[in-house]
């Protein structure tokens, strides 16, 4: 419904920079997730967009118009909170109709809108219930209906499903995605749950320590984390200390293919996804010898922990068709990894397909 521009937005609490110079644009009908560990400033950022916190500096614009000076009740945003925030003394109908009534709509129009919004969140017929008579999942659905019934330009969601159990969380997530697609509403969703972010978002903004580390499509974030923090935070990752000298990359006595342009340094980190370590036949050139310490069956795949001499313990994902037992000796070949050096963007290394055969 609308575009949101965040421009050099900063929020300082005392000496703490909760949000440090955030700047990005959320496009019309885009679903943006702000992902980060607790205390990273993601909620503060969302609360500034809603108007509950005043920024220390910077600007927020919706469709090109600044909303920074507007109080929350004058902003074209609507929020779904982390806690259950239905008003306990009002029925479901009254909760949803409250905001509509403030807009001076006629009784018939309000009736219709409340009815439609309840149908949208699959809670038709619950109009006369009180919040205390609803389950947690139902309460959050009503809260969602209460927000979208106002047809806000931007829908804000502050970890709305975090207090629900895992199964319900996944179901509501799918439902939210469907509703967002249908209404083509611009949405910003704050979460610390990467699975939630990866499955919901058109784009993810990863935050850490008040700083936005990277904004990208979920697949890009996963495949090409631009900082070490993102590499460590998103998905499972093996982070290994390495050094480079005269164009040769060394990792605990092993030599790795180094791309051009690598500088001599002993502060290099190699990021290696568990699925990018292949078990190969013994004798394959450049393969690492390892011993399997632990095998964990995770349904459709197995996670194994292997000990590589001089390198340490690594996580490896293998398919179920492959028989691996604890104590086995295997050969591993890294087929793709990222090299991080001096806070610069990582260098990606893909082993040529020929090396695998």
């Amino acid at each position, binding site marked *: 419904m609308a575009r949101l521009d965040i421009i050099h937005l900063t929020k300082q609490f005392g000496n703490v920079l909760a949000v440090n110079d955030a700047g990005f644009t959320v496009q019309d009908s885009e679903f943006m997730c702000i992902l980060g560990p607790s205390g990273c400033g993601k909620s503060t950022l969302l609360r500034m967009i*809603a*108007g*509950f916190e005043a920024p220390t500096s910077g600007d927020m614009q919706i469709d090109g118009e600044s909303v920074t000076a507007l*109080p*929350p*009740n*004058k902003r074209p*945003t*609507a*929020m779904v*909170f982390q*806690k259950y*925030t239905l*008003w*306990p*003394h009002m029925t479901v109908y009254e909760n949803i109709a*409250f*905001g509509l009534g*403030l*807009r001076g709509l006629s009784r018939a129009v309000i009736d219709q809108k409340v009815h439609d919004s309840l149908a949208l969140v699959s809670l038709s017929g619950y109009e006369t219930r009180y919040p205390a008579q609803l389950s947690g999942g139902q309460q959050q659905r009503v*809260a969602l209906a*209460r*927000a979208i019934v*106002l047809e806000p330009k931007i829908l804000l969601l502050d970890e709305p499903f975090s207090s629900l159990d895992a199964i319900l969380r996944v179901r509501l997530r799918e439902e939210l995605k469907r509703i967002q697609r249908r209404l083509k509403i611009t949405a910003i969703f704050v979460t610390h749950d990467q699975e939630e972010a990866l499955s919901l978002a058109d784009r993810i903004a990863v935050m850490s320590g008040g700083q936005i580390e990277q904004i990208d499509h979920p697949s890009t974030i996963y495949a090409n984390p631009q900082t070490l923090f993102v590499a460590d935070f998103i998905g499972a990752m093996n982070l290994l200390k390495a050094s480079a000298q005269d164009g040769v990359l060394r990792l605990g006595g092993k030599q790795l293919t180094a791309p051009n342009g690598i500088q001599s340094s002993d502060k290099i980190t190699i990021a290696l996804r568990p699925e990018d370590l292949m078990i190969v036949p013994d004798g394959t050139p450049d393969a690492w010898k390892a011993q399997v310490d632990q095998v964990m069956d995770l349904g459709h795949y197995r996670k194994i922990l292997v000990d590589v001499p001089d390198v340490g313990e690594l996580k490896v994902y293998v398919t179920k068709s492959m028989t691996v037992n604890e104590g086995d000796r295997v050969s591993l070949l890294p087929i793709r990894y990222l090299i991080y050096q001096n806070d610069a963007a990582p260098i990606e290394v893909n082993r040529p397909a020929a090396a695998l055969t």
Partner: protein
Amino acid sequence: MTSAQPPVSNDFWRTTRRSFTAMIRRDGFGLLALVVLALVILGPLYSVVLWAFAERWRYPSLIPTEFGFKFWEQTFSRADIAAALPFSIVLSLVVTALSALICLPASYAFARMRFRGRQALLLSFLATNAFPRFGLYISIAVIFFRLNLIGTVPGVIMIQLVNTLLLMIWIPTAAFQGIDRSLEEAALDVGASPLRVFIQITLPMVMPALSAALLLTFVNTFYEAQGALLIGLPRIVTMPVLMYSLINSQLVTQYGAIVSFVLWLPSLLLLLVAQKLLRGGYLTAGFGV
């Protein structure tokens, strides 16, 4: 057709008996506590009610030998009672209203604002209850005497206000503090102005506690005797003050009994009305039950 139906009443008694014995077995101590509590609370009331309707009750009979309303007529034909009853009711209403006017904004401030000395101020309201009241009243009476407030209505109102402060500040403060701020933020978020949020969201949610505070304040004021006695006499006589003098200086026991019985009624009525007006469980919630 009727013969096919099971004997309902028989069944009812059987299940009642069964659940009763089950209750004793499950929670014998609870039942014992209930009986003791009932005796301690209802026993004195029972005696007062009997005396109020007794025309003749002499040792050693356990209950009065003659019941009647003779003493009721006598009691209510007394000029002092006819004057004191309406005065007491109006006085209690005025004190409750004034107390609410002063204390409710204060309790909102205590709950929502962080200022220097907040904790100390809040605790200071306990002070009036922490020491023997009478000492406090005497020293206040000395000041009131100089200000010519002894024996005046404003004087009595002021001394009774002192008594109401603790309840009227502490209960609403706790209630305002108990409200999740995000409920108010949610209302702001859908477009309500701060004033509307207060009236339509905050106030209804603290209403149970506020009602409890108002009710307790009214009842406490209505029964307050020490302060009213010390500051009000000789010109101002409230019902409890009158009851004291009737009990202490009259040979007729029934006067005192009838007056105490009558003194019950307002609080009983108020409680019943409150229970009717407020939704089920609303009032008890206010008392923290």
